[in-house]
């Protein structure tokens, strides 16, 4: 395969950035949800719930 370094760099860095952004967004949500009563946020579920 030609240009393997460019392919790995392009795909790898894009997926890493997207993954890091997704994780940081979820962590922001978890941190913020600690300060908000459940009745204000109808979609909130505990991490152990199936729903």
């Amino acid at each position, binding site marked *: *395969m*030609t*240009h*393997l370094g*460019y*392919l790995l*760099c*392009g*795909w790898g*860095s*894009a*997926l890493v*950035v*997207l993954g890091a*952004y*997704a994780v940081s*967004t*979820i962590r*922001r*949500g*978890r941190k*913020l*949800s*600690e*300060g*908000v*009563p*459940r*009745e*204000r*946020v109808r*979609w*909130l*579920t*505990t*991490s*152990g719930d*199936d*729903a």
Partner: protein
Amino acid sequence: MIQSSASPDLLTTGSRGSRALGLFSLLGIAALLLFAFGLTEPDIRLHPTTGDEIGQFDAVRLLYLHVPLAVCTYVAFFFCALSSACYLIRRTPWFDTMAYAMAEVGTVFCGLVLMTGSIWGRPVWNTWWEWGDVRLMTTLVLFLTFLGYLGLRRATHDMTASARRGAVVALVAVINLPIVNRSVEWWENRTLHQKSTLGDLKIQDLTLFTLILGFFVFGLLMTWLLLHRFRVGWLERQGAEHRLAIAIIERRADADGGNLGMVVGDIP
């Protein structure tokens, strides 16, 4: 003593729908990687006169990433502007929260478009960056404008002022969107980019299918990110309102002689 009704359990921005969406996104990325690296052929053609091999070779596999990211960026910024316009008309927090989420996700995607385009350009165009290329420059301006939008949103704690200013900036910034998209047609001699190959169906079969799969997969991923980012924005707003309600009750309790007489968690 003031108590909060916030649950000690670990809460998330996830729901059944968002988890299904996330799972489909992951499966889609796996399928896209399979098609992009395993099933599609490299772009190799023969020169009509010399017979030499020409084309993008395996670098074409970066386009299954770069082009869908670019289209998702257009979609995110367009809906950011639309939500901003709706906010200025209706003044409801839902539209503002959606616009902010769209802008942030769109900016991440736009940054990746610039990065993957640069990495693709090095083997194909023999350059990382071309300052005279109109599409590169208009995309860079779009990225910087929305970075400015995000900076503006964080510059003040006044949510109403932040929302109003952000909406105006988004509506101005989105003017650049059709310019980015049409720049290769309007200034065809000032860009290294080719005109649209998708509209004219210059690519076919598995290459076309993989590109369309890329649109679908990154569209799913963007929707999943938007869902979580929207909920983060909603939590920020609800948290601020809840803290304000607590502060008001505490102030009233102080004025009544320190007899609070109610649980703050009862505040709706």
